[in-house]
């Protein structure tokens, strides 16, 4: 058995050019559009743990607070004026009935502390509850970008979407690493799922091919920074 030490890497800021608009791929998995001071977060899946508990699988009930804490941390670092939750923010339509009081208060505080909060409707939560504040929209235009939950098939320049939970796998010296990732071909971007219990779909899956004319590159989430990896270097599962 052996191990290798890592040289501490200087933080590297990774921008993705999406149809000419620079979008920051943050290490937490959120996207940030500086020109609009907008933070975009996809697939929070709040209360996924309690959804399993209702079916007898007693996952730790802390996924909502873990997810919100990471989001709060990103908001503190990036100081957005607007936050857009890109759909599937709640794991199902009864999620709010299961949410712990403390988590509910936490979420309301987050919504209150920015100028504008937009809930984009997702397939798990077509009509997010108004009780947490913020506005609800099916999709939204932002500085030449189009924000929606589910990516459209075929060309869709300027689109920022979630829904697919992209993950990428790479291999070097006999070992492989699988991480959540941003996926982009320069015309559009698909964000990684942010929720603490959200799994991932490999970017080599056919669902992604329907969205990109050429093999897209991926921006994989590391511990300290995001790593851009060429599409030809990623592997299927």
């Amino acid at each position: 058995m052996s191990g290798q030490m890592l040289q501490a890497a200087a933080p590297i800021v990774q921008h993705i050019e999406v149809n000419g608009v620079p979008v920051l791929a943050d290490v937490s998995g959120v996207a940030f559009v500086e020109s609009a001071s907008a933070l975009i977060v996809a697939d929070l899946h709040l209360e996924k743990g309690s959804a399993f508990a209702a079916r007898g699988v007693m996952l730790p009930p802390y996924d909502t607070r873990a997810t919100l804490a990471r989001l709060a941390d990103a908001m503190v670092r990036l100081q957005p004026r607007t936050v857009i939750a890109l759909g599937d923010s709640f794991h199902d339509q009864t999620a709010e009935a299961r949410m712990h009081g403390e988590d509910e208060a936490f979420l309301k505080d987050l919504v209150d502390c920015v100028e504008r909060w937009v809930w984009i409707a997702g397939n798990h939560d077509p009509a997010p509850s108004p009780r947490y504040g913020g506005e609800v929209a099916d999709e939204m235009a932002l500085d030449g970008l189009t924000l929606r939950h589910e990516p459209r098939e075929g060309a869709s320049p300027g689109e920022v979407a979630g829904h697919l939970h992209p993950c990428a796998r790479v291999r070097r010296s006999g070992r492989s690493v699988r991480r959540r990732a941003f996926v982009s071909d320069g015309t559009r971007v698909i964000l990684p799922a942010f929720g603490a219990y959200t799994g991932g779909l490999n970017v080599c899956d056919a669902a992604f091919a329907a969205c990109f004319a050429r093999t897209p590159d991926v921006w994989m989430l590391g511990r300290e920074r995001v790593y851009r990896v060429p599409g030809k270097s990623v592997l299927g599962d």
Partner: protein
Amino acid sequence: MDRAPGLPELPPLFARWFASRGWQPRGHQLAMLSAAQAGEDVLLTAPTGGGKTLGGFLPSLIELAGVVQDAGRERPHRLHTLYVSPLKALSQDVARNLMVPVEEMGLKLRIETRTGDTPQSKRARQRAAPPDILLTTPEQLALFVAQENGAAFFADLKAVIVDEVHALAPQKRGDLLALGLAAISHYAPQARRIGLSATVKDVEGHARWLSRDPASEALTTRIVRGAAGAEPEVSILTPEARIPWAGHMGQHAMEGVYALLKTARTALVFVNTRSQAEFAFQRLWRINDDNLAIALHHGSLSVEQRRKVEGAMAAGKLRAVVCTSTLDLGIDWGDVDLVVQLGAPKGTSRLIQRLGRANHRLDEVSRAVLVPANRFEHLECLSARDAVAEHALDGEPLKSGALDVLAQHVMGRACGDPFEADALYAEIRRAAPYAELPRETFDRVLEFVATGGYALGSYDRFRRIVKGRDGLWRARNRSVAQRHRLNIGTIVESPMLDVRVVSARSGAKSLRAAGPRLGQLEEWFADQLSVGDTFLFAGQVLRFEGTSQTDLFVSRAGGEDPKVPSWQGGKFPLSTYLAARVRKLVSEPEQWHKLPDQVREWLEMQQLRSRLPQTDRLLVETFPRAGKHYLVCYPFEGRLAHATLGVLLTRRLERLGLKPLGYVANEYALSVWALEDMGPVDFAALFSPDLMGDDLDAWLNESVLMQRTFRHCALISGLIERRHPGLEKTGRQVSFSADLIYNVLREHEPDHILMQAAWADAATGLLDIRRLSDRLAAIEGRIDAVALERVSPLAVPVMLEIGREPVYGEAHEAILEAASESLIEEAVRP
């Protein structure tokens, strides 16, 4: 005639049968009869071939013969004897062997097996009309306990026989079995227990493990020792060629091994890992000029392939089988007259068990040859041979029961007949591993089973088990209970892929229409393959073609030299006992005359150039080499403990500003390298036992090994499910979500009972933390530091491992970095 006075006599029918075979009942067989008549629990320890199985069943057969005689044809169906063994195949083998006396004495008994493969219809019939003797596995027993009407099924049970107790008791499977036995005793307090075991070090501990009353001050289990067999003849193969400094394959010894095989009727060639098995099998065939029938047997091969080999061996058609621990346990395959142990034996009890595979008859000498693969292993083989001659045993210590297994059992009991919490607590404390279980821990486990046991308490309305008005706990509904039954067991396989053959270059499309299944491989091994890579498996060179969710596709490749040399699996750690003997051998030059010249000269050179490691001290060498500075130490505590030490030392050296770059461990030594010279370090402080404090916590929290340990606990405890009706989870899916759960739980409730269970496992499992901390405490302040100008002779083996071992576990960021770099390469390429 070895009958001691005071032992009972056989009934005439049985005496006649023994006589018809030309046998006398052995003393221990009659002693078993006497224990049964007294209604006592009994542990029989005897070497292989001593008539142990018959000794275990004899009292039951005699009782049943009486029942048959009295009751006649229409007697009601009642389960009389339950037999539990760790292996399905062993149950089937014993059932077959049992039919010989039963048929020859004309007894009309129903003897049946029940394993995971038993069809549903037969299981249902077995419940409705039980056989007289049922042979099964610990998992099947747990299933019985998790079904209703246990009381009726077990009411008339008279005896429970546990075979190979020593192989079960130290494991989580043993915890599960102990709990199952306690539940059965609740239904059938009269049922006595019979344990059959190879000779073990801790006889009394195993006897107590078996007892119906483990907490009583005086041991209530009778201990019966079978007569010792003839002394085995153990020799060590010393090749004339140079003995390698490192490596585990034993390539240099293959000619010698082949020459041995030619002298034997049937030989078993034991190796420690499946890759060694594949390698040895291939090399032996390459030099098999006499066309000896040599076969291969290991746990990754498909069941059909293994059964074929076992069948051929029982029929006497094979001259040799290269095998792993799959053939360690007591199945009587055939007429083996030679055992070869290729590579170091790692522990004396395992070696003795393996030696027992030769000559399944007590009176014949078994012949064994140890084949060390490198110089250090030569020391280990010599130590093991001496230990065998002294009958010195080691073996895994018995430990207190695991909490994840307890959680599974509590859920199982709620799926069976409803229970009252106080009564269940009392019942569980009658299982030896849980005899000391505090009530508070039991209550936490019960709450965990009901709601997950989280401090947040938000799952009260989603209970899996509920307490009724009658004060009894039961599963919430049928579907919860059914799902639990699908997930019973403590064996968590690492995620595996089926290896399937396709025709070469058939393209991805035809992969779906793949051909025969050769066996299974770990998913992480598949991870490191690229299409076109070749590797050894099932005795063939295979070409990797691709994977799907559950399959790994290969084609048959020509050529003899696979590109990807090996894969891990089944590595045993060096036992603490054997490690101590090796340490002693190295430190005592007066013993070296027993070693071959090359090995002795190597140690003498070490004495000259550096120092010898002393038994109660730690030797630490530092030296420069090729622009880097090395530190090599020799704790002799096994690869796992050394790897953990490597992590902790590099963290500490980093803080001291010495810029450590990496480490590599083998069974005996650890090497760390850095940019700065580590010679001036205060070694007493560097190796002080507080190394196991905060650094260990910090590292474990993000360690991949800890995540894997947690995943096992989560699966066994039922927090996450392996199987869901109609939806088989693949290993990858399970492993991914378990990591997410681990991360959330350690952040928000680090004291959760499942985290405690995972920590307890880490102490003894993949990280061997307890062993490391024991050693650090033993050598505290006793460091022999030597600053050298160049590498010492003893350091060479571990230095040769550098670059050969894959980068371990924690280097994920480096892999991402490297993958990211390839973008730059692409950009700058002309």
